């Protein structure tokens, strides 16, 4: 009986506490709320950022987005930045939170984040980034470059045709190209199918090597290294987090790697034609400014791609493997 009372008391205390917390918050809130209501030139904007997971490339995109928007709007913009910590269902919780608090714009970083936000709202403008193929991600069959809905954004699709050409330029005598990626990442599979076609047309034989997570990566990469002359790594998040494993297998085996982006290349690759996720996020931030301030309609804004590509190479690994790199490549700065 005592216990029951204690619990009842505890629960009651928790309730009272939470109520009082709400009370103080509310009174402090009111001046800010009234400022928000006045539709003058100094209108403030709230932007919700939903990011799938803590990850160098995604973090860079978010940072670029915020830098671009803050540069233009200063302190007139506030961010509600949420990260699902890799939990897919949490994206829906975050999306719901943004929609119910009626933010002015939502930036969704990575595919599941964009999909959850798309499901949550058909009215609030949404910008995606770090998404490779919007047609597939949003379930739009007749993809034309614009969504026709409240969604636009930037694609992290690397210039695959130019990457294939680069692979040909560096390794003209290779025969077998292994493409290594995580089977859980739709964007990687898409890139693999595109570059396989390009490389096959150039006379290479391509084979996919997929792993499910970092635990079976080493086994898969070992067999990939044994059977391939060159390995191609698409812009794969799991690969990006595990470059050390790949390097420790491929460099001793003498198998060079062409990577889809700079981060992976600096970890384990020889060369890359890189996009910068920071620039991508920055471009997304500029789109956000157009929507918030100039009233642009995301329905008619075409999906943008990375503004510039850089031919880069990893000096350490290239030297170890004895590969001579043409002079128009830039060495990746050591971190």
């Amino acid at each position, binding site marked *: 009986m005592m*216990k*029951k009372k204690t*619990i*009842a008391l505890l*629960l009651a205390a928790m309730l009272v506490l939470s109520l009082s*917390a*709400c009370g*103080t*918050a*509310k009174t*402090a*809130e009111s001046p*800010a*709320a009234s400022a928000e209501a006045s539709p003058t030139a100094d209108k403030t904007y709230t932007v919700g950022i939903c*990011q799938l997971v*803590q990850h160098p490339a995604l973090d860079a995109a978010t940072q670029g987005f915020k830098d671009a928007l803050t540069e233009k709007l200063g302190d007139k913009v506030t961010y*509600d*930045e*949420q*990260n699902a*910590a*890799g*939990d*897919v*269902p*949490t*994206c*829906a*919780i*975050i*999306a*719901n*939170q943004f*929609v*119910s*608090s*009626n933010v002015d714009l939502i930036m969704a970083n990575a*595919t*599941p984040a964009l*999909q*959850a936000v*798309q*499901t*949550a*709202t*058909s009215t609030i403008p949404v910008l995606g980034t770090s998404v490779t193929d919007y047609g*597939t*991600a*949003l*379930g*739009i069959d007749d993809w034309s470059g614009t969504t026709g*809905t409240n969604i636009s954004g930037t694609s992290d699709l690397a210039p695959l045709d130019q990457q294939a050409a680069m692979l040909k330029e560096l390794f003209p005598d290779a025969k077998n190209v292994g493409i290594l990626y995580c*089977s*859980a*990442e*739709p964007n990687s*599979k898409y890139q693999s199918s595109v570059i396989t076609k390009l490389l096959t047309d150039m006379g290479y034989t391509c084979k996919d090597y997929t792993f*499910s997570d970092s635990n079976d990566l080493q086994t898969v990469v070992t067999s990939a290294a044994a059977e391939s002359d060159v390995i191609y790594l698409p812009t794969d998040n799991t690969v990006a987090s595990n470059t050390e494993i790949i390097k420790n297998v491929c460099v001793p085996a003498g198998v060079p790697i062409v990577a889809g982006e700079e981060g992976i290349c600096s970890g384990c690759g020889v060369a890359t034609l890189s996009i910068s996720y920071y620039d991508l996020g920055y471009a997304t931030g500029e789109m956000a400014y157009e929507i918030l301030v100039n009233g642009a309609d995301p329905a008619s804004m075409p999906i943008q791609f990375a503004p510039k590509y850089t031919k880069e190479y990893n000096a350490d690994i290239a030297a170890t493997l004895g590969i001579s790199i043409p002079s128009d490549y830039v060495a990746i700065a050591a971190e």
Partner: protein
Amino acid sequence: MEILAYFASLNPLNLIASLPGNVAQGVIWGIMALGVFITFRLLDFADLTVDGSFATGGAVTVVLILAGAPAPVALLAAIVSGILAGLVTGLLHTRLGIPGILAGILTQISLWSVNLLILDGANKAVNVDKYTLIVSLRNVGSSIITALCFASVLIMLLYWYFGTEQGSAIRATGCNPHMSKAQGINIDSMKVLALCISNGLVALSGGLMAQYQGFADIKMGQGSIVIGLAAVIIGDVLGEAFFAKHMNFVIRFIFVVFGGVVYYLVVGLVMWLRMPTDLLKLLTAVIVAIFLAVPYLRSKAKNSFKLAGKRGLRENA
């Protein structure tokens, strides 16, 4: 001053406005927790199949809806896929003698490949603007009602079933397998049956979740066993607190679903507090740990007499 500014930046209206969505998601996961309750509590079997079968349910549902099947049909197929997953775990365990936890893990990892095959990739969107879905983040209100209807019907069915001879045999198997065997219950069949029912429910919940969030993803089931267990235990603790000894079987089921709701309310609260996002999992774990610790601490306090008695016995021996 900084603390004041922090509180000022929190808008309680936003928290209240986000409640319905969190409740909807909580009820959907509550259905999943019903499945976990059957294996974990009734059968006393830690079934790790669910991380895979949750995603299987989502994958089957989305693929069938995209192929033109009505959502209820797709959900039925999802249930069947979950039952099959449970069957595999059950047979691995009972026929091949693989320990329960390993049997679940084996099925779970094989379902990763199966799900990739079903989805033909890692992720598939089902656009709410183009297909008729029975629950969706777009219409939170109606989603709550639909999910609650599902939960109520399931609770009634489960209550009825676990009162029948077969259902009671499953419960007996969980309580005391040796005694049940001695009473002529085929405990292997009962284990398989319970695993099938459990994973059927989990897959149904996965199918609802995929519609609710608008896509199926190969990773959507990762860690779902943790959420399921948390919901079961939170439900237990709250049920005990409100009903104590009057908690009957129906109320236990209801509180399992309620546990799922509480879990997602907590997640929503942590997000609303704008804690550094890196701390999200830690904070959620701390809150669940509190719920886990309460029954233990209570029983420890309750049993002080028994403890004293035991001590006395030891000293006298």
